[in-house]
């Protein structure tokens, strides 16, 4: 018997392994997934030919874009943008970049067409000083100014990094403000002094002559009141723009006396080389009519002016022209807008060829939204709206609604199919509402990946949540309540005042409902779990000074009804404290949050907080053990999972994991990992917690799993109360080696929680892999001594099969977050992975048990059925004939 049991368990293990190996089929590529690649906000750009443009972005990425459609020809992702930035992009026969910062500078040469590296070298400089980089012929000149004293110039051979060992020091007491210094061609130039006495200083870096030219600005552009600023034109010729009172003058630097052109230019001007000619292109958009842009071009030498007007759909206003190129009369202008979108303008047609929404390269909040039902379905639903019990009334209602359905069926179907935003049977078609770091809000269709609508907010920024950027996005009313429009709310931070901004909108159409600039800073926000008469969930905001604000104010009465059971928590990562607040002491006049508990985590840094998804359902109440008894899960909806890292003299870093009850502040479980360091990622779901950390002792990433059980008796099967604690839950814990570097983790979620749970892990190598929870589930001693069905023996190193990669060969760069949402199909979970790229797919942790298989052969079955019917008729006829013949024999 025992052997049989072991054999069966092995067999089950084998089965589960097989189960994991189930992945995508090759013909499913792109069937329900899409990927969009982004590069970030563009800092530098340069046309390499008539076909492509090379750009460098603030995400520390260089890329080559096709001019035809704006798609990425190649993209190279450099070091992390935190502390590393591209400072120089030079496009010639090869692409030269200088990037880096804190840990030194990387000088790299790239092949123009394919993006392969040609050469690379590094150099170190003092971190605190801002440097300037200039390329002149085959020399890379590094210039480090010291304000008020001198200038250090070092020249390197650009391909090898060889220098003559000398650093030239030039005395430069005139450097007062580095924001007034720019590079222009091979010159480095500064403005010193105020308006009237302002002087222009410039140095020719190519000749290595330590000669500084000084000139008064007055001499160049005349005397007028107003501050003079400098702008580099990022152009090979040593040209600058001197701007005073919003009017720019084009100045070509030369030894001795610079050449000044007399045109008054807008500060937003780009130089487009056109053979011998040089064209100056300016884009102007009036504030009254932002959809219209004027292109104003001036020929530098001859002064021929040309104006073209064009329509530009993006209303956010042009930020600046990145680069421009002309061939004859045809010009290409690459410009970026305030919302980080980049567009290519074709001249002389004046047409915007394409636009890339680079705001999506940094998503800070996501929410999946169910679409409204079609008009026909909605009219059917209306049929049951009436509450009157009158027989004739209901009959009348029924007849009218059916007449309406008929009319909708005959006429109205077109209007819904036009927009296409209609709920499907399986709930797979949804809308993803996405808020980006720059302050642009998007609605993306899950089926196509297209942007349905977008809206940009000026001067907003995201909150910083545990070293991450984040905005707060809530669904106040879903699309379920048909005549009422769905409603979402987005909370942002004002860039100038730091106060909160609340934007309420209809997520389906993008229609703005309310934009409110709050007069306080936001400390904590909670979406109330109670709906009012109009099915709207109220929003509770705790301001910086611990005042409670409610939106809309009509939700006050509902909150007061439930005030005694409403609790809040706040976390202060800097001080390492957690506070619990209760609304029980609120009065109708004054809703207040009174602190009920506080938890001091010591001198530790709070690195991660995990809560259970609000919409998660736990289907099974317990686990059936081998002896057929049930071990009941400890499912506490108020549980917070907290991870802290503390510096330690002996163990370097110590990781603490706490499970805290958010209502009472009771620490339900805590554990310590010595010599464990960041990055820490937490996933808290059902009655378990999975976290990842770096084990400093063995230099590997490990995953820890904790599972909580009430025991063999369930304390209260109908309702959970945090106050009714008779005994602490029984915890089981286990750790595993993880052969990869996680960047984000999330557990799958399904409609009813029947489907198995998988943990989705976004890895540094660009893969998003799924690990079944059964692999991580800690079984403890009991499991080993008395294995239950489906028991997987402990394997220290988790397998990461390539088949478990949900994004197959579509590697995703710099994954920041994973968002999951249930479909209406129980087996299916929708996944959005965001980072530099955006990827959407769906996963089925227990396979599609509620759908016919995709490769289900309808044709074969139909043919076999028809064939059998035909065959039976034919044989019947034959048999009867034969029987008759034999009968007459």
């Amino acid at each position: 018997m025992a052997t049989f049991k072991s054999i069966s368990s092995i067999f089950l293990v084998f089965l589960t392994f097989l189960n994991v190996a189930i992945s995508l089929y090759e013909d499913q590529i792109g069937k329900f997934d899409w990927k969009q690649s982004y590069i970030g906000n563009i800092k530098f750009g340069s046309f390499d030919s008539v076909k492509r443009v090379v750009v460098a972005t603030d995400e520390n990425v260089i890329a080559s874009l096709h001019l035809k459609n704006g798609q990425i020809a190649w993209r190279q992702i450099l070091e992390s943008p935190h502390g590393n930035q591209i400072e120089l992009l030079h496009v010639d026969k090869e692409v030269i970049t200088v990037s880096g910062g804190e840990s030194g500078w990387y000088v790299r040469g790239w092949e123009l067409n394919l993006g392969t590296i040609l050469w690379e070298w590094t150099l170190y400089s003092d971190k605190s000083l801002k440097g300037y980089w200039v390329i002149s012929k085959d020399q890379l000149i590094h210039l480090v100014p010291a304000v008020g004293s001198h200038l250090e110039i070092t020249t390197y051979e650009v391909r090898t990094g060889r220098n003559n060992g000398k650093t030239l020091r030039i005395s430069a007491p005139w450097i007062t403000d580095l924001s007034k210094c720019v590079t222009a061609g091979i010159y480095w130039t500064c403005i010193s002094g105020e308006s009237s006495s302002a002087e222009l200083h410039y140095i020719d870096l190519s000749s290595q002559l330590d000669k500084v030219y000084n000139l008064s600005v007055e001499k160049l552009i005349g005397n007028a009141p107003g501050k003079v600023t400098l702008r580099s034109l990022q152009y090979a010729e040593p040209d600058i723009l001197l701007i005073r009172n919003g009017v720019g003058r084009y100045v070509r630097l030369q030894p001795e006396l610079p050449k000044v052109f007399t045109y008054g230019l807008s500060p937003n001007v780009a130089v487009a080389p056109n053979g011998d000619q040089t064209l100056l292109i300016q884009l102007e958009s009036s504030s009254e009519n932002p959809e219209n842009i004027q292109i104003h071009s001036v020929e530098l030498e001859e002064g021929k002016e040309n104006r073209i007007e064009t329509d530009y759909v993006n209303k956010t206003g042009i930020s600046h022209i990145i680069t421009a190129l002309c061939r004859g009369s045809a010009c290409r202008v690459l410009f970026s807008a305030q919302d980080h979108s980049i567009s290519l303008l074709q001249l002389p047609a004046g047409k915007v060829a394409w636009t890339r929404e680079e705001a999506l390269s940094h998503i800070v909040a996501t929410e999946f939204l169910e679409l409204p039902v079609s008009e026909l379905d909605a009219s059917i639903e209306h049929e049951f709206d009436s509450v009157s019990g009158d027989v004739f009334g209901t009959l009348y209602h029924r007849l009218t609604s059916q007449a309406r359905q008929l009319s909708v069926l005959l006429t109205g179907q077109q209007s819904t199919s036009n927009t296409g935003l209609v709920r499907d049977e399986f709930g797979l078609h949804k809308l993803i509402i996405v808020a980006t770091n720059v302050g642009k809000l998007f609605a993306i269709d899950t089926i196509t990946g297209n942007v349905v609508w977008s809206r940009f907010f000026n001067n907003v920024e995201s909150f910083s949540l545990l070293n991450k950027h984040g905005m707060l996005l809530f669904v106040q009313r879903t699309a379920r309540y048909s005549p009422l429009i769905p409603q979402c709310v987005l909370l942002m931070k004002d860039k100038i005042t730091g106060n909160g901004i609340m934007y309420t909108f209809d997520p389906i159409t993008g229609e703005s409902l309310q934009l409110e600039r709050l007069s306080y800073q936001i400390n904590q926000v909670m979406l109330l779990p109670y709906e009012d008469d109009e099915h709207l969930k109220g929003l509770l905001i705790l301001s910086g000074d611990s005042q409670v604000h409610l939106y809309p104010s009509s939700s006050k009465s509902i909150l007061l009804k439930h005030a005694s059971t409403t609790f809040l928590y706040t976390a202060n990562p800097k001080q390492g404290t957690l506070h619990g607040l209760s609304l029980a002491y609120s009065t109708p006049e004054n809703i207040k949050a009174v602190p009920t508990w506080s938890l001091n985590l010591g001198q530790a840094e709070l690195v991660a907080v995990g809560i259970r998804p609000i919409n998660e359902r736990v289907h099974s109440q317990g686990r059936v053990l081998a002896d057929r008894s049930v071990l009941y899960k400890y499912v506490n909806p108020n549980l917070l999972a907290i991870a802290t890292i503390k510096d330690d003299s002996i163990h370097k870093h110590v990781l603490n994991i706490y499970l805290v009850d958010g209502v009472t502040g009771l620490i339900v479980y805590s554990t310590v990992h010595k010599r464990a360091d960041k990055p820490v990622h937490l996933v808290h779901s059902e009655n378990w917690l999975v976290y990842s950390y770096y084990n400093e002792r063995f230099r590997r990433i490990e995953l820890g799993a904790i599972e909580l059980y009430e025991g063999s008796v369930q304390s209260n099967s109908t309702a959970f109360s945090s106050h009714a604690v008779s005994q602490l839950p029984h915890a089981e814990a286990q750790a595993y080696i993880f052969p990869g570097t996680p960047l984000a983790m999330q557990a799958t979620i399904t409609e009813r929680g029947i489907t198995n749970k998988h943990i989705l892990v976004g890895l540094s190598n660009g893969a998003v892999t799924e690990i079944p929870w059964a692999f991580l589930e800690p079984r403890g001693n009991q499991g080993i001594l008395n294995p239950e069905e489906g028991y997987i023996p402990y394997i220290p190193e988790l397998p990461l099969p390539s088949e478990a990669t949900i994004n197959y060969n579509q590697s995703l760069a710099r994954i920041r977050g994973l968002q999951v949402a249930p479909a209406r199909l129980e087996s299916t979970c929708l996944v959005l992975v965001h980072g530099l790229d955006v990827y959407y797919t769906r996963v089925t942790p227990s396979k599609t048990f509620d759908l016919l298989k995709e490769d289900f052969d309808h044709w074969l079955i139909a043919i076999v059925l028809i064939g059998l019917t035909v065959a039976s008729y034919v044989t019947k006829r034959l048999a009867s004939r034969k029987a008759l013949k034999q009968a007459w024999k």
Partner: protein
Amino acid sequence: MKWLILVNFFLVFAEILCLEVTNGEEESETQGRYTIEGKVYAPDPPFTPANWQSDTRLHINGGKYLGFVKEDGSFIIHNVPSGSYILEVLHPEFTYEPIRVEINSRGKMRARKLNHIQTNLVAPVPYPVKMKPLGKTKYFQIREQWRLTDFLFNPMVLMMVLPLVLIMILPKMLNDPETKKEMEQIGSLTKFEMPEMSDLVTNFLAGTSQSQLQTKKSAKKSSDDSDFSALDSDKISSTEEIEQMHLPQPEERNIKKGTFILVISRGGACGEQPPDAFVLSRMLKFDGF
């Protein structure tokens, strides 16, 4: 055990000391940055992607330091301080085995196989490292293809086809005169053992009274000699029982009907029905052997 713990403790202590020493040296030497060199090999020619160099990246400790592959496959990762690192080659289509590269405080390099479980086990790999692809990464499951053999050996198909074969081919075999003879022989054999059903029935129907009398006689006999009656257990012992045997006449007709239905299902004859008696007699004959 105590000793072990002590040794363990000592080891840990020594390790800490070592680490502190390295930290100290890092601080003293500002330029304590080293380069890791090596070469990445492309997959073998027929599978070499056109532009694999630009799609290949090297990550150290999950992307803390980066390396890019030159056209000849070589790479240099700059700016790495001393320590122990995991070097990975990333390519969307091909898998490479990660290795561990260690740089000691004096800048000496060592490469070894990555072993997460036995971290102290050193399996050296030559440095500068040579990264060779393990193979094409398998992301997809292969869809089952429709094959004739699969279809034929399907149990359902087998269940359907075998009886069909038996029905279709056996009658054909009967047409062969030799086998027919054989079959007849077998049939005659069976005839011996079991009288024809029709005869039995007619006998029963016709000769009820005779047999009743006989049995009555035997009953009398049995009353005389009880020992014999016990021995003749296969013979019907009492009139009541015989009557019971004979009473269910309609049942027997039912049986005939049942066999008839069987014939229909086998032969499929229901269109033009020959005279009823014909079928019955033929059928009963069939039953006979």
